[in-house]
């Protein structure tokens, strides 16, 4: 039983509206989210993240497809019968109830014993460090404190899965960093599966066990932050997660040829003659005299820990290299200088066009 995925989404589709004006918010999403994992849905605005979360919570019904939670098909259950709780982006705290009453609400609705409710609520208040404010109402709390109440309220009934829709987007940067750590701690302490929505790739990379990258109602890639960052499935993922250089190339035996004619030794299993895109992270671009690609430095930008060197190939293709600064802080490059570029074979990701 324990190796059942916490959530199984089978080919979920969601249309808003009908006929000509219909919006295809989800276009066939299949996904398993494992027990106890911190799973992040990442994607640009309007790609269907919220829709997928609302489908899991039960606020929307899928146009097609099924949703299983802990092995049970819940597709036809209303939200109040699903063992999941949500932390809403707006928090949606009950304004007429104290912090304590807010946190107790779910347990009361489940008909738990008074003693058990009181005990759990106290534990939750301590967990989110709100002991001094238990009697206040939400309007008497700061944004970060309201956020904690929302978390405690959703965690109190001990759901199988906690859904979080951009819970940190309303907070300022410092508080946001604090709450990121706090969320990780809470997830670790409770062992509850977290499904977290964000469009901030850095947040996704630092917090998640696994990330699902979405675009236009589809799931493009699912994997650990390392897999997603180092082996993006396509150009969109590579571009969306961190900075990336894209170089068009034609495959030959044991090498690829760039558009300006430069020959880069690179083994591949693709048929010679096919066109590919090479994706290389700026920090993997090496400036070395024996590099196969000739380029001209256009601009050198110092940024503390490293220096960004923007260069152009002979056909005008842009390429950026991120160079770690030596103790002197000077990488010794000047605009207009001719350089040679290369990269380690395993630092290049070959994407189909």
């Amino acid at each position, binding site marked *: 039983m324990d190796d059942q995925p916490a959530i199984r989404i089978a080919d979920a589709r969601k249309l808003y509206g009908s006929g000509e004006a219909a919006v295809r918010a989800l276009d066939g999403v299949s996904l398993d989210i494992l027990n106890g994992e911190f799973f992040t849905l990442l994607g640009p605005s309007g790609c269907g993240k919220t829709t997928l979360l609302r489908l899991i*919570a039960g606020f929307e019904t899928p146009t097609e497809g099924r949703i299983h939670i802990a092995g049970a098909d819940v597709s036809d259950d209303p*939200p*109040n019968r699903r063992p999941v709780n*949500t932390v809403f982006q*707006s928090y*949606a*705290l009950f*304004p007429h109830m104290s912090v304590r009453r807010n946190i107790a609400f779910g347990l009361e609705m489940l008909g738990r014993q008074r003693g058990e409710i009181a005990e759990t609520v106290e534990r939750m208040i301590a967990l989110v460090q709100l002991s001094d404010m238990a009697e206040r109402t939400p309007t*008497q709390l700061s944004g970060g404190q309201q956020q904690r109440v929302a978390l405690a309220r959703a965690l109190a009934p001990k759901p199988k899965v906690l859904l979080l829709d951009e819970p940190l987007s309303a907070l300022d940067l410092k508080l946001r960093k604090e709450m990121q750590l706090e969320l990780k701690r809470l997830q670790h302490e409770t062992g509850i599966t977290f499904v977290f929505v964000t469009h901030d790739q850095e947040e996704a990379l630092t917090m998640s066990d696994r990330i699902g990258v979405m675009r236009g109602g589809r799931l493009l890639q699912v994997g650990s932050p390392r897999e997603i960052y180092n082996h993006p499935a396509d150009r969109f993922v590579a571009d969306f997660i961190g900075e990336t250089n894209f170089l068009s190339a034609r495959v030959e035996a044991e090498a690829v040829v760039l558009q300006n004619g430069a020959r880069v030794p690179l083994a591949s299993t693709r048929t010679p003659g096919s066109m590919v895109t090479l994706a290389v992270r700026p920090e993997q671009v090496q400036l070395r005299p024996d590099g196969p690609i000739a380029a001209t430095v256009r601009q050198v930008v110092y940024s503390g820990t490293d220096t960004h060197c923007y260069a152009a190939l002979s056909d005008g293709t842009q390429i950026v290299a991120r160079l770690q600064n030596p103790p002197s802080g000077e990488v010794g490059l000047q605009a207009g200088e001719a350089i040679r570029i290369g990269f380690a074979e395993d630092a290049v990701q070959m994407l189909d066009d």
Partner: protein
Amino acid sequence: MAAPPRSPARTSWLLSTPALLLLIFGAAGPLLIVLVYAFLEPGEYSGVVWQFTTEAWFRVFFERDIFDGTVSPADAHLTIFWRSLELSVLTTLTTFVIGLPMAWFIATRPANQRAIWLFLITIPFWTNLLIRTFAIMEVIRNQGILNSLLIRLGVISDPIQILYTETAVLIGMAYVYLPLMVLPLFAAIDRFDFRLLEAGYDLYASRWQVLRRIVLPIVRPGIVAGSILVFVPSLGAYVTPRILGGGKNMMIGNFIELQFGQGRNWPLGAALSLILLAIVLIALLIYVRVTTREDSRHG
């Protein structure tokens, strides 16, 4: 330093003088007259005789037999008070039960449609009360719209007697005062954050629990305001019970009118008016208590 500025307190007193005068002559004055009349003897045909007595107050609660002078409780008066209270409470409840879904419906329409719905709700309000009451009469009388419809549909074979019953008064008052309930309810629901409903369902609440634990407490100021706005005029209602209730189903308003007319007992009418006023004041006090407690809790 120049001359000291006039104290703000004195200035504001001066500015509020017209309002104060209006209050004294428009509200306090007449009230004082009513208070004085309640302690005088009735004149023979009408008016009062300037002779102090508490007879009017005694007559509110007791009857003295004309022949042997024995005293008994004024059951008829108590019946009228009780009926008035009962009908006013029922009117308030009826308008609430009908008004809440109406207000909810309007508040959940797109912004550009709301004005139309609110306008429709208030149209009857611009119409003369007598005309509206006669319209209701036309609906519920024995050969009226409702009975003919039910007979034609075969639900009943003989017309139901609604007109000239307490039910008729209730229907009439609920119809007349419904806008006074819907408008404050709408104002409260309009400010309600509908995302709280999803939060409620998410935390395992049923529809009923969401209504009782989340919606009603939050829109309570609107409920209280609407209830007061309906209850107060219902208690003093005069035209509607007179026309729809016939002679039998008198309410306090009609009974007071009787004292100043055929009854020729102005002091009794004055005493009854003061009691009506007291009931209204108590209702308002409860309103203030409930709303201020709500405010302090919201901080």
